[in-house]
């Protein structure tokens, strides 16, 4: 066996949370929507977002593609038009 990935690389769900402020929105895109299948991790993520007034959204089309259902009232499902609206509503986007 050969390993070429760093020990430190890990799921980055919590990273943007460290740098988001009250009023920001974190949009789960592409494979990030798979977090919705990890209830325990996601619950603590959502609780932290709620405590810091950070909104959470997920891209509907990416959820559908992967067969993911949204069981979380705290997560707003948006389509691409909703994604565009989020970009317009916030002064900048940071892609982590």
């Amino acid at each position, binding site marked *: 066996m050969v390993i070429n990935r760093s020990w430190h690389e890990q799921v980055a769900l919590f990273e943007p949370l460290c740098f988001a402020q009250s009023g920001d929105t974190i949009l789960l*895109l592409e494979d990030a929507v798979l977090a919705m299948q990890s209830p325990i991790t996601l619950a603590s993520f959502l609780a932290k977002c709620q405590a810091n007034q950070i909104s959470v959204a997920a891209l509907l089309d*990416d959820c559908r593609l992967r067969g993911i259902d949204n069981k979380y009232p705290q997560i707003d499902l948006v389509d*691409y038009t909703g994604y565009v609206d989020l970009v317009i509503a916030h002064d900048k*986007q*940071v892609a982590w």
Partner: protein
Amino acid sequence: MNVNILVTGALYSSQSAYSALRFCQAAVAAGHSISQVFFYQDGVTQANLYSLPLDDEFDAVNSWVRFSQQTSTPLVVCVSAGERRGLMSDEQVLEHHLGRNAAIDSNGSAHSQFSVAGLGVLHQASLDSERMVTFK
């Protein structure tokens, strides 16, 4: 609003071509304009003229070409990132004397709908646009 798009994900190793295209189409449909789509890092592979996916698969390169033609949106490939990865215009192939056959001058690997320019173009567009959205 005027939105500048930066795409850095590789063709078929990332979803960035699909995500960015869907975003751009939705933005245009909502009355916004895309000032340009700039391809950097592995994103330059999305301009590859010689990408030939199977007929029933997503054709990223030609989808960009169609979007660009329909909306007059400039597609720009970073020159240095492209040259690292073998992505260049006909002119670059001539300039570097890379052609296999001097009689054929149109063997650049970048689709002609994409222009090749420096990172200055990305920075200028980001200064001129109201928003910048990155797709990795």
